[in-house]
């Protein structure tokens, strides 16, 4: 919670701003990034240490490199690490994707479910479960294919001599309605156990994720997150409006297309691994933006916030109720909502508006 108290620190006068990657360096942003990263790492280690077979916290980090007692290494490295890493990657992917999308649409309420990704992935997976072709194709494949198809449909339908951020959001709403209505219809036709399985996936879940979930997602995040950071300059210009961005020399359509592609790919891979853990992509960028006191969500800090949010939620989900493994989505929803409200109240008190 150290990051929360740190927001109370006074704004330092920022006269000197050396540029990094063409962006001004903000001391507050750097402090927040480091703080959030440390907190996230702490929660990550705690998640590896706690469980039916508790591991002392000091033994966790060596066990990551397979040094220590054999039992400890097995529990940490083989049993808990894949799930924890999936949580880290999912959090980073959802949050970074949300940050990019909120910036290009210039809308704080934009989240990847608005551009058809979650809706497409959900419909594909639920159809797979209810109509019975899910077992042969595999839920992650269906989620990935559905998400990409949904996003492609939105982008193509929104294209009319170029695209605008607002039109993409509007078309995304329309596509989401269609997909959600199809999902609702399938759910009313499903057998009870199918409906339960589908709802369990719909909430977002890290239970029983192994290395096979980590690898594709790890590669995707390793490629796409740096890409999102490299494109941050364009992202910043796009927020000034298409005309100003063009005046600043940004190839508007190319930039928006690439940024959208990065955002879509990130969230599709994450959804394929864990289901739609919706709140993260919406809340983490907003939380990060308020932590850094910027006018748009910063990508790296958003990603770190997302990691903290998902890792912490999964830790709680595993230990909140003694006999049941709650889906992580239930806890991210509750925690994220509480945190967002808290920040909202704080910013209201400070008189700086929402």
């Amino acid at each position: 919670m150290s990051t929360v108290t740190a927001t109370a620190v006074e704004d330092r006068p920022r006269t000197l701003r050396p540029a990094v990657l063409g962006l001004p360096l903000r001391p507050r942003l750097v402090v927040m990034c480091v703080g959030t990263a440390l907190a996230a790492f702490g929660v990550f280690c705690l998640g590896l240490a706690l469980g039916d077979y508790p591991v002392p916290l000091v033994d966790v980090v060596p066990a990551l490199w397979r040094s220590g007692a054999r039992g400890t290494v097995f529990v940490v490295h083989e049993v808990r690490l894949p799930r924890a890493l999936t949580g880290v990657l999912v959090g980073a992917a959802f949050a970074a994707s949300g940050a990019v999308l909120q910036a290009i649409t210039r809308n704080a309420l934009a989240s990847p479910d608005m551009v058809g990704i979650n809706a497409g992935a959900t419909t594909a997976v639920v159809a797979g479960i209810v109509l019975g072709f899910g077992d042969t194709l595999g839920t992650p494949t269906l989620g990935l294919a559905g998400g990409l198809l949904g996003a492609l449909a939105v982008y193509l339908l929104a294209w009319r001599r170029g695209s605008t951020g607002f039109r993409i959001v509007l078309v995304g709403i329309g596509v989401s309605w269609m997909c959600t209505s199809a999902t609702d219809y399938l759910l009313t036709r499903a057998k009870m156990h199918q409906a339960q399985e589908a709802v369990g996936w719909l909430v977002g879940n890290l239970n029983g994720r192994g290395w096979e979930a980590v690898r594709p997602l790890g590669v995707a995040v390793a490629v796409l997150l740096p890409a999102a950071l490299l494109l941050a300059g364009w992202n910043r210009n796009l927020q000034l409006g298409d005309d100003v961005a063009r005046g600043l020399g940004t190839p508007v359509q190319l930039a928006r297309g690439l940024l959208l592609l990065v955002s879509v790919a990130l969230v599709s891979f994450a959804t394929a691994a864990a289901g739609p853990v919706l709140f993260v992509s919406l809340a983490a960028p907003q939380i990060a933006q308020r932590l850094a006191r910027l006018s748009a969500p910063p990508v790296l800090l958003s990603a770190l916030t997302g990691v903290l949010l998902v890792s912490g939620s999964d830790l709680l989900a595993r230990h909140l109720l003694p006999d049941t493994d709650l889906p992580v989505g239930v806890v991210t929803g509750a925690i994220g909502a509480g945190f967002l409200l808290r920040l909202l109240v704080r910013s209201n008190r400070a008189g700086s508006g929402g």
Partner: protein
Amino acid sequence: MTPAPPPPAPLRRAIAYLPAAALLLAVLCLLSLTFGSRAVPIGQVAEALFDRARVDPQIEAIVWHVRLPRTATGLLVGAALGLAGALMQGLTRNPLADPGLLGVSAGASFAIVLAVAAFGASTAPTNLIWYAFAGALAGAVSVHLLGGLGRGGATPVKTALAGIAVTFLLGSFTSALVLQNPLALDRFRFWAAGSLTSADAGTLWQVTPLLAAAAVLALATAPALNSLALGEDVAAALGRRVGLIRLRATLAITVLAGTAVALAGPIVFIGLVTPHLARMVTGPDHRRILALTLLGAPSLLIAADVLGRVVARPEEIQAGIVVAFLGGPFFIALARRRRLAEM
């Protein structure tokens, strides 16, 4: 007010369109009474309506106990959703403001799941409506309170963020309950599809005065919304009390949207799009937008309900599903053709 002449063309068009919209609504209501798993000819419908004693008791039962409450639910829910959407868009000056953002759907969903989980299968569908209503109101009130905390009061952005937070908080509780309780899931999945069949005549009579009062309040707020469209400062300079306008509109929106969700489950499209359609016909005057929405929104919902009964005979597709599935492409076409942002 200075005698600035209003743009005449939209006025004339609106005056011509209102009777047309009323006629369309009447025709759709008749269709809704005749179509279904058993088709009842219009002649027999009229006979059943006006001369109950003389018709076949089976047909009398179909018309009076199945089709009439269903059509009335469509009328009430459609009108309520349309008015709530139009008011919200006018109040927030945001073309994407949707009553669902207020926390009513989330509150109602959670209340229903909680009621089923706590009281089990004995909960009758009509009782669920009252739980949903209480949940919807609680959701909306908490969103408004949270959005208005601290200095500056409630602004549209803060309220929307509070709405999202409450929606996700209650949504995650709902998911947790539904995953633990198969019976709650079973009730919930049918409720979430959005159907006009759950309310009976008694419940409808009970909610009608409430809805009527909220609708009057909504229509009475329309002139003030016209001033508000010029910006809050201008509205205040024109002598409007912005806080009071907000309070009245918020009250009306909450009651309208909350009742609609309680009666029929979460239904999209109607609240968001019908005000835009009405605005295309009438121009920017909120009095005319609200009047046309009042007639147009129930037409859309009843048409969707009739369609859902016809396409899958002898089974039915819930009105909420039909609305969303057909509304999607329509909304996309609209987004491609016109700038929805122009308000």
